[in-house]
């Protein structure tokens, strides 16, 4: 009988690079930067790592396929290294691989590292990915981009709840303003400047109705975690450590896009992954129990809708919570207290681990100017793909009690 992952695995060290347009650094350098921080944080020797999971998404433009690049960059001692890729959930997939490996009892100490070097391609936005959905889709699929697909969600959401687009836009702007204010306090964020609601609303249109400031940045970065079993953490005399409470992935089976049962106003798999994660973590009322959220705010509308899919806000009511400041740094559940994808940008393979990194810092009281008061438990969520076809990851980490 499966018992879930709760409190079986401890995070004993984490690292995260400065995210941004890292013209100076290649993928190898980024991985080493995150790795060195994590090793020092965990207080272990590199030789103690017994296996590693590495996440990259756009493999061809940075490190190539396979786990070789990570193994070589980190000079890992000929251990098992596995590369994973699952769109924007890749980073969390690497974390999941490492956590499950420890939980299985196969290893004592395992590394999860995610990295993406996006800014070597010569143009803005994510790399062109028309081939990423396979040869057949390339022969009929619209030439979609990420902002285009998420823009559709805004229209679908407004239509479903009979909202005026200007009201949805204002809530979306509030989300961006909030995240920029948070990011301004984070030296590792790519974008560290506060913005005004007016600036957001007047930014040039990228994909109707999303303007430039509704979109997250595109940047380079790496993040990494070192995990071990709770027993090993205790044996290492770690105190007040953080454990994994839930790890869930939910993947579309094509229903949203081909079967007439999806409303176009929510993300099916976020809700499914969240329900399973809450059950795994023993959370009954996420709105009351969660201390902070790090969600996949690739676009402001995504964060808005995600609040409903995570059962924090009621259906159709996320706008009210957003405008009430519920998710602001001073609100009941701060969301993207580190600045989120909005300010960190989205180096695909790194993002999931970057989110866990922030919750880890917050739980340890090491978040400096943006430190929250006594957080106990936090949730991360990634949305890989598009609203109508996606890979969702949800991770919950908290204090070990």
């Amino acid at each position: 009988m499966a018992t879930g992952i709760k409190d079986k695995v401890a995070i004993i060290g984490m690292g995260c690079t400065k995210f941004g347009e890292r013209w100076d650094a290649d993928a190898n350098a980024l991985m080493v930067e995150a790795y060195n921080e994590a090793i020092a944080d965990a207080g272990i020797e590199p030789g103690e790592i017994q296996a590693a999971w590495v996440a990259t998404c756009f493999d061809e433009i940075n490190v190539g396929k396979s786990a070789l690049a990570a193994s070589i960059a980190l000079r890992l001692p000929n251990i098992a290294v596995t590369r994973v890729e699952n769109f924007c959930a890749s980073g969390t997939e690497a974390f999941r691989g490492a956590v499950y490996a420890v939980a299985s009892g196969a290893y004592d100490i395992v590394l999860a590292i995610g990295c993406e070097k996006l800014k070597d391609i010569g143009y803005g936005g994510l790399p062109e990915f028309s081939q990423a959905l396979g040869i057949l889709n390339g022969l009929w699929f619209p030439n979609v981009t990420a902002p285009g697909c998420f823009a559709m969600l805004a229209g679908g959401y407004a239509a479903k709840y009979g909202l005026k687009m200007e009201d949805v836009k204002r809530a979306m702007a509030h989300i961006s303003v909030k995240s920029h204010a948070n990011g301004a306090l984070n030296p590792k964020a790519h974008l560290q400047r506060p913005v005004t609601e007016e600036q957001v609303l007047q930014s040039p249109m990228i994909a109707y109705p999303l303007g430039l400031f509704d979109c997250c940045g595109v940047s380079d970065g790496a993040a990494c975690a070192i995990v071990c079993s709770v027993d090993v953490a205790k044996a290492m005399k770690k105190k007040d450590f953080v454990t994994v409470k839930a790890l869930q992935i939910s993947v579309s089976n094509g229903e949203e896009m081909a079967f007439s049962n999806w409303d176009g106003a929510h993300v099916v798999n976020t809700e499914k992954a969240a329900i399973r994660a809450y059950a795994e973590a023993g959370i009954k009322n996420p709105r009351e129990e969660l201390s902070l959220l790090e969600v996949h705010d690739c676009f402001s509308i995504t964060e808005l809708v995600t609040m409903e899919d995570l059962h924090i806000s009621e259906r159709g009511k996320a706008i009210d919570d957003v405008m009430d400041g519920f998710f602001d740094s001073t609100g009941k559940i701060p969301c993207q207290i580190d600045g989120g994808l909005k300010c960190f940008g989205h180096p695909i393979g790194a993002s999931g681990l970057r989110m866990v990194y922030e919750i880890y810092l917050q739980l340890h009281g090491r978040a400096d100017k943006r430190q929250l008061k006594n957080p106990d438990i936090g949730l991360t969520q990634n949305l890989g793909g598009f609203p109508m076809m996606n890979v969702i990851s949800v991770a919950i980490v908290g204090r070990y009690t």
Partner: protein
Amino acid sequence: MIGIVSYGGYIPLRRLSRMQVVQQMAWYNSLLYSLMTGERSVANWDEDAITMAVAAAVDALQNVEQKSIDAVYAASTSFPFDDRQNAAVIAEALNCRNNVRTVDMAGSLKAGVSAVVAALDAVESDSANKVMVTAGERRFTRAASTLELMYGDGAAALVVGRENVIAECIGSYSYHEDFVDHYRGADKRFDYQWEERFIRDEGFGRIIPTAIKLFCDNYHTDINEFACVIYPCPFAREHAGIAKKIKSAHVYTNLHDGVGDTGVAHPLVMLCHALDSAKPGDKILVVGFGQGCEIVAFKVTDAIESFKRPRGITRSIANKKDIPYPKYLKFRELINADTSIRAEAVPNTSLTALWRHRKMLNGFVGYKCKACGTPQFPPYPICVNPACNKSGAMDDYVFSDKMGTVLMYTGDMLAASVEPPALYGLVEFDGGGRTLLDFTDCELEKLNVGTKVAMSFRIHRQDSMRGFTGYFWKAVPIME
């Protein structure tokens, strides 16, 4: 009785005002002043001789079951493929049976009428019961040339057969003469045209009257028996001059003002336009011109009164939208506009995948589950209905003829597009099924959640490096 049993027409949405071109380019070519009236039709960037032929044929199939078509004869001088049968693409887009005869007719502007005559012969000889004839043209012309103002883009389709004939064939005549008013050598993009005076006097002005006289003599008939005489001639004065020479008061408009000369398609475009208002008993003479003439004559029957009129040329002409000249130049790649690095990566088309999924890609054929009846696209072996999920029990299901409703949409400025913003969204089909589709022939401002759309066969991607054109279906908001 053998003749036309159905017809359809298609003139693309965009119109280029000739005055606009004169205003902008007559400083360079003063001959343009002679062509400053009216407007010409312009194919959208995702339309070509194949897609417009499909549009006209779909229109004609309102009155004929596509599985009853025995042959597809496709005419054009601007087919996208020199080798890969264009008629085969058209036949698959129409979901014809796989034992239809498919033939490309090309090489001369009279090929459209020649295709009709060949189709009539096939029916007469009983080698086919019904033949779909299509003629579509999208010719390239140099910027600021007179041809740019004289030509238009469009297509027509006729179904020729024996049953429910609306216009009976009453004769045909071929007259051949290697008169070269213009030509386009292999590998050349543009026509090379000879002096206009020569073309008018020795070409249109002599050959068409000669051929018509030979036809009349052959059938012991008089031109005045014809309520409608159709011949293409883009020169207005010469078009009228020919009428005087043949002594007919019933010469049909050459559609220069609203369409322009649609090349191979033009005699059939004019015929379809005439059929839109034809009455029983009307005799119609149709002349194709190019290295001589191909002539065919019809007599409209009583059946036309109960014939369900297609969208046709008349309504297609009325459905129009201006195109600014610079946008037209970009559509035809007559200006070397900047493209983003994002647009550089053009993968080749897997001909293996294209072949394996040809019904899906050409005909927009998905599945309908035998167990639960759910229409679905793209076609996968296991039913998408979560309450069913039955494996391997699917019937083919055609989506190309279904209307739909927009569920979600966007106008994407980031996506590489010939005409930004790229418009796409999720469409729910009447009768079930939904999928993500491009929108075309529309603007962002016209789209809404709930907008009704119809399907249109269009260019999906253009691989100019390898010379390949890939097609799929797009959604067009219903204007009427």
